[in-house]
């Protein structure tokens, strides 16, 4: 009797898990990619609030920071952390500009291939347009009201930094609502994007430290 109850529970758990994350069919993948690309192509500028959760398996609580992200085509990007500290990082013309509580610095990344890659990846993940089969092994899933794409880097150097990237898309809007960067199976950074504003006028002068 007891075993039967356990079996029953396992069955329920198994069912609910598979209901959460379901593999897309080829047709679904094609239509999902098309939806995202159509929207991504329309994005000239993007601003969004974000909350970042750093998860390390040995900590009792995720480390939470939050702020605002601004993107302008083709590759101007700024992350402003506002809580619990003021810190901004701007990607601009092969440079990283940092403002750390008023202390300003700049790093030239012109020669750093790995940084250029990571930069492209961040821009791609925010706009959602990073379905590059040459760079990643990609798998597609659907959840309730959401689509999920998982990217595993093919490049060994990149893989040392990021094991996997997971982008969650709102099904209706076809825009990214969550970015999850996995360093290992236990440690990851999860960034939730909300209050998105698309194509508002943003001046280039914003992208400074």
């Amino acid at each position, binding site marked *: 009797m007891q075993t039967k109850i356990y079996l029953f529970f396992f069955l329920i758990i198994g069912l609910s898990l598979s209901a959460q994350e379901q593999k897309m069919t080829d047709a679904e993948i094609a239509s999902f990619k098309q939806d995202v690309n159509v929207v991504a192509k329309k994005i000239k500028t993007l601003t969004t609030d974000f909350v970042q959760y750093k998860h390390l398996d040995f900590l009792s609580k995720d480390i939470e920071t939050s702020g605002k992200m601004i993107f302008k085509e083709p590759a101007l990007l700024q992350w402003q952390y506002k809580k619990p500290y003021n810190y901004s990082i701007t990607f601009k013309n092969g440079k990283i500009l940092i403002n750390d509580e008023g202390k300003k*610095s700049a790093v030239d990344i012109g020669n750093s291939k790995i940084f250029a890659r990571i930069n492209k990846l961040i821009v791609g993940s925010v706009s959602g347009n990073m379905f590059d089969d040459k760079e990643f092994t990609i798998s597609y899933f659907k959840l309730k009201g959401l689509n999920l794409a998982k990217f595993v880097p093919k490049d060994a150097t990149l893989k040392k930094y990021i094991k996997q990237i997971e982008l969650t898309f709102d099904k209706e809007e076809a825009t990214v609502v969550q970015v999850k960067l996995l360093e290992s199976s236990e440690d990851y950074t999860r960034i939730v994007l909300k209050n998105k504003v698309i194509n508002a006028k943003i001046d280039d002068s914003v992208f400074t430290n």
Partner: protein
Amino acid sequence: MQKSTIQFLLINCFLAIVLVSCGSVSKNYKPKKLDKTSYTVPYFSDSKTDYVYKTNISVYGNELSGIFIAKKINDTTHRIVFTTEFGNKLMDFEISENDFKVNSIVSELDRKILINTLKEDFRLLLKKEYQLQEQFENESADIYKSADGKRDNYIFISKKDHKLEKIVHSSQTKEKFTLFFNSENNIFAENIQIIHQNIKLKIELNYFKSE
């Protein structure tokens, strides 16, 4: 004439500095009768607390910032992780009095001299118990001397509120590095500075509460 006077003064000043810095570190303090044989540091000792600090490292004019995380994972060992503000892990260590393990480190920082320096700094930062051999005082603090191999640690406890203010790690003749603590409640240090005297390295930790 005037020129040689200035030179003479300069040389004297220089000599004075050399002489002071060559003498035993405790020379500047007044000896006192030892009032206890051991001291337990209150900071970093709670295994339920995630110790999370915004960190600025300044090394030979270069600035590096990120997040410093320390957690007591068992009776003897702390896990220490340093990440960027984005969350990328730069270093991941496990450290106790006698053991040290590098779980991971990015290749850019994987230098023996850096790892050894940080190991020394963090080991002292997380050290819980000190055996005391001598005591001194100055105007504002009681100063305890604790032997550490060939070197010594000088522990400064403020006279006013009995808080741990700083720990000076020194050889027989010279201060090597100093830990400064700022704590409201004497359980938790909100601000910590690790300043090296022999190399240009300064690490500043500022506690932040995640919402």
